[in-house]
């Protein structure tokens, strides 16, 4: 006799709402007249995200916290709900950036008709008719739903399903840029192929772990691993699953898609994806490693340590030689993955441990990267966005506010005090050092020094260099984008000056539960 598992809708409705909004978006796309679609989609997405955020806050404050539901497939614990909220916050910003139509003469950053081949008459017709893809909003909502599930997945299957739900829309969104479509499509293909491989590897690892533990539940795997840790099935499984997650976060040696995708994707997508994916992937990674493989710390810690070291060094050094601002931020994202992995090496303690450190880092990085890419989308020439760094020279003089705000984001990523990035960096380093991982921390400090060089170089370029003749101009965005940039900047400074409330929230949120 099969009994259906009990589902606690009281705690899961924010996730279901977001997925529901995504489905509703598909319906709108099918039945609403073209003229009404844009407004309908944007308001639907915004309303859904706001409601889901309110729900997540309510769940986080409620008594349901610390329970699992669906036979342990979903775990509603402090870190999970915190990262869900963070994903929703960043996605609200993402929707605002997606909806930006003022920068590009009244059209969005997405291709008029993705099916029209670049350079054909079909594409010209599409752009003449002013078509635009409004499917991006349901696609984004599906991805957000997947990310929210990813943050709270308590068993292996759920983890895999969530991974796919969040990944597939991202592949599509990457390929939808209105300008430089070939670059965008190439990036999408690369992302899809590598992503599909990594999913396969992840699934293979998952099967091995199931073979070892005889259970999908992370908590039960954790118990089994504590009893018999030397099983080759388990070790191989850990390795293969790690590959899948390291790919998603863009860690070396699985980082090669990052700069291409960051550069090729429409900038609003890059802004939202770079923040949200990282949050979800690290939330899942922390849970997987601490809950299921926590007993195997001695095995995976050195391996992750090596990956962290390589990621930091390679990300930081490759970022130096980039001439395109989006690629540079892409490699900087790789370096940040390394810093986050450094935090993963720490131990999960009751007070300010590695979970808290990584989540704070994600908060700081999320706002900084969202804001930074939003600014990148403002800097334009006659042919759309200008990524080439030498055309950014003198931008801080012609547009002091934009230059200064971008500098704030860069300084936060560089980890200077009085910005959120500093507290974040302090936290992950402290977590790793607390676990005795001082060689990794030493490398992390070295990579931070390298990283500062390329962040500061951009600031130098903007403020201390004379403007060239073909200097990029800054377009005036709509209010939505301005608000996103302003709020990200405020959050970046505020979290650096008064991080206390968020830190306390994280400490109160506690650790992951099995």
């Amino acid at each position, binding site marked *: 006799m099969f009994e259906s598992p009990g589902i606690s809708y009281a705690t899961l409705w924010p996730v279901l709402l977001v997925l529901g909004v995504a489905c509703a978006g598909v319906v709108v796309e099918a039945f609403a007249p073209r003229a009404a679609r844009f407004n309908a989609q944007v308001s639907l997405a915004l309303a859904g995200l706001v409601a889901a955020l309110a729900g997540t806050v309510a769940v986080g404050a409620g008594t349901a916290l610390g329970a699992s539901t669906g036979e342990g497939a979903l775990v509603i614990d402090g870190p999970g709900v915190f990262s869900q909220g963070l994903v929703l916050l960043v996605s609200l910003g993402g929707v605002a950036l997606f909806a930006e139509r003022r920068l590009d003469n009244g059209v969005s950053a997405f291709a008029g008709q993705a099916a029209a081949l670049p350079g054909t008459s079909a594409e010209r017709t599409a752009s003449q008719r002013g078509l635009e893809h409004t499917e991006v909003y349901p696609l984004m909502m599906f991805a957000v739903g997947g990310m929210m599930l990813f943050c709270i997945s308590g068993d292996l299957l759920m983890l895999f399903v969530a991974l796919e739900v969040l990944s597939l829309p991202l592949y599509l969104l990457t390929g939808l840029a209105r300008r430089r479509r070939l670059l965008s499509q190439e990036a999408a293909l690369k992302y899809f192929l590598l992503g599909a491989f990594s999913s396969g590897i992840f699934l293979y690892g998952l099967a091995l772990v199931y073979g070892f533990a005889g259970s999908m539940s992370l908590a039960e795997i954790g118990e089994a691993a504590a009893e018999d840790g030397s099983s080759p099935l388990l070790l191989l499984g850990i390795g293969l699953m790690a590959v899948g997650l390291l790919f998603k976060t863009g860690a070396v040696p699985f980082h090669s898609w990052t700069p291409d995708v960051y550069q090729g994707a429409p900038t609003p997508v890059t802004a939202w994806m770079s923040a949200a994916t990282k949050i979800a992937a690290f939330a899942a990674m922390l849970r997987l490693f601490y809950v299921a493989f926590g007993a195997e710390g001695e095995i995976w810690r050195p391996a992750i340590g090596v990956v962290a070291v390589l990621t930091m060094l390679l990300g930081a050094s490759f970022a130096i030689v980039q001439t395109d601002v989006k690629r540079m931020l892409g490699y900087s994202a790789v370096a940040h993955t390394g810093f986050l992995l450094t935090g993963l090496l720490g131990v999960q303690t009751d007070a300010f441990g590695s979970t808290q450190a990584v989540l704070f880092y994600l908060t700081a990085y999320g706002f900084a990267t969202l804001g930074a890419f939003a600014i990148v989308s403002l800097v334009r020439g006659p042919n759309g966005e200008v990524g080439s760094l030498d055309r950014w020279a003198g931008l801080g003089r012609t547009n002091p506010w934009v230059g200064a705000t971008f500098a704030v984001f860069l300084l936060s990523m560089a980890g200077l005090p009085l910005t959120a990035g500093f507290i974040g960096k302090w936290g992950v380093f402290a977590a790793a050092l607390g676990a005795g991982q001082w060689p990794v921390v030493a490398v992390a400090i070295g990579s931070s020094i390298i990283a500062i060089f390329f962040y*500061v170089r951009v600031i130098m370029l903007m403020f201390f260099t004379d403007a060239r003749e073909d200097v990029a101009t800054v377009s005036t965005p709509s209010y939505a984008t301005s608000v996103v940039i302003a709020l990200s900047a405020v959050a970046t400074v505020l979290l650096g000056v008064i*991080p206390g409330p968020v830190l306390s929230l994280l400490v109160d949120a506690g650790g992951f539960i099995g």
Partner: protein
Amino acid sequence: MLTTLVLIPFVGALVTAVMPARPKLWAFGFAIATLIAGLVTMFTAPDTDVVWMEPLGVHWALEMDGFGKLMVLLTVVLVPLVMVAAVKDHDKRWYAWALALEAFALLTFLAADLFVFYIAFEATLIPAYFMIGQHGGPNRAKAALKFLMFQLGGGLVLLGALIGFFVVSSEAGAPSYLISDLARLDIGTTAERWIFVAMFIAFAVKAPLFPVHTWLADTTEQATTPTSVLLVCVLDKIGTFGMIRLCLGLVPEASAWATPVVIVLALISIVYGAVLAIGQDDLLRLIGLTSLSHFGLITLGIFAATREGLVGAILYMVNHGVATAAMFLIAGFLIARKGTASISSMQGLEKATPVLAGTFLIAGLATAGLPGLSQFVSEIMVLISAFDYHWLVGVIAVTAIVLAAIYVLWAYQRIFTGPAQLSRRPVRDLDRREVGVLVPLLVALFFFGFVPGPLISAAQPVVAPLVDVIQAGE
């Protein structure tokens, strides 16, 4: 009250940045207000201690001891003077950054919490970076980058020490960053040594000390002289301040362990800086390199770790600030007249600019440690402690005086003596504004030269417990 002292220049920086009308006057007003606040807090200022980031054990804790008082005094006096000197060649951005720099520098001198100290320590770099990068010579952007890379590199190493303290203090119970709490911690010998090395590297870059001094000459060459004054006379003092407050104060045993190496580095800085200064043709580089030599002496005084040495080092920090500020400003005035910093292109200016030549000579001789001028007392105290440490160290350190006489007098000879050049336009002497800037500095040089008592009595109580701890450690 102490928080106000930090807030006044900080708010001033924001006001100056946005004020459309007369921003420089506003900035000067805030600098004067800071000066007054600084003087008031010197007599009546309760310590501040508010919990800031509870999970990290960070307190917003400020206190002002005798050492802090001297450094605060130096800072609040120099900033308005420099602003007057800077008025012609700088726009309001520079004034805003200067006030921000003052705010953060004061915060480092007042911080009773290591985390607060660190934040201020790093935050000073942002205004300094923009001050160098936005005003100055043709290669200023490169110099600014070099400055920032060195400083932030040092800062991140210090971050390692900061985190090390957090880990140790967490293990000992609740984490706390209060310097008084950290001083009571029982740190293992190995950890203590690593922490010392990390802190010392950061402070050596800041101070600067051989071999991490190379940013100094480039920066002083490219930056405008008012920027250099703030950098060398205020900001770099944070390095030696940290050596005393944090290296000796928190990890005395490791400091004693590292003393031989530090002394060697200090000696190299003393001689190397002076020798390089002698050979310089660029007047600004020359002054920058003399500071390398002087910071070597200060470090020597600190680590020789006798009562005289430490008091001498603290005095030296104040006096060097005054004398070098005068040197830089005079050099700036001179360069503004000649349009170049190259010594070989100047000659025989004595006749045309007697006041300029006279002030240059006084300030120069002060940096060379002429008796009767302020630096003499501190130099003697440092040298005595050097001889106490080891006679050879003393002998090498004494060469600093000889070398200093050479670079000062030779520079004077090349610039001011000899046949006057026949130039197209005559070189004017100092005007009233410029004299007004220099007079307070020169008065201070003479006053503290003859009456060093107040400085010594301010430094004494700070030094005594440090020396006791160190001698107990040895």
